[in-house]
């Protein structure tokens, strides 16, 4: 349960990637980072090294899979999609995350 700070940051990025792929379907690395940046209203600006490192990690764990394909404007790109295991893991992580953030909000907003 006790994760180091780096693990926690990696975990949250992993969750965001899984969520993105779950909602948007197969997407390339550029699309994933654009989407995360847009949704977070540019709060989260991703250095691309981090995104691609996360994608490698997720692949190694079997939560996403990758395939080379062609984008809408005919660019060759590597598309990632979420797997069944990945979807299951995402749901677990989401409920965990919800629990933690609810608890944090409660604690941090208590004035008395």
């Amino acid at each position: 349960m006790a994760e180091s700070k780096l693990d926690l940051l990696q975990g949250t990025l992993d969750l965001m990637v899984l969520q993105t792929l779950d909602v948007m379907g197969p997407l390339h690395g550029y699309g994933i980072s654009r989407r995360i940046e847009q949704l977070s209203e540019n709060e989260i600006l991703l250095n691309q090294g981090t995104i691609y490192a996360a994608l490698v990690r997720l692949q190694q764990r079997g939560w996403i899979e990758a395939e080379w394909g062609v984008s809408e404007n005919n660019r060759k790109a590597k598309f990632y999609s979420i797997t069944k295991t990945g979807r299951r893991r995402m749901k677990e992580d989401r409920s965990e995350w919800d629990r933690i953030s609810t608890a944090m909000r409660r604690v941090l907003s208590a004035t008395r």
Partner: protein
Amino acid sequence: MAHIDGNIREAWARLRSFLLRQELDREFDEEASSHLALAVDDYVHSGVPEAEARRIARLKFGSVEAAKDAHRDSRGATWLEGLFRDLSHAWRGLMRDRGVTLTSIVMLILVIGLNVAVFAVVDTMLFRGFPLVKDNGRLVYIQERHTLTNGCCLLYADLLAWQDQVSPFRGMAFVGAKPS
């Protein structure tokens, strides 16, 4: 159960990453340029001139080398890759100056061989004892000391003479020196 499967799966993926490292590096290069191309497309689409779009996209991507390093790190086989790289570097260094390498190898063989031989003798004589002797604890070493001359070593004739005499010793035999 799923946890153990995950670990094995990851370990296997790391090994695979190590074996395919050159291909994976090349694939990342392709992915990085694909990313930049897509980004430029987006900017151009929203009206930015292409040269400027390229500049912005590259800036936003950050250092490609750093991203490549992060990619390699996350593959999880860095220590193995590092070890391999060090070994092949050392090998190339040795192959560059074969004379020195050959000399070193020969010297090592001689030294190690000598040590093994000496140890075999010492081990037999001092530690474990001779294999054919029944009770090494009762073995004694008889030596002659010449006080008036600087001579050494027992003569075979001496051994024969002693064997003929009555002695407390069950038997006697030469060790080491050749009979003269």
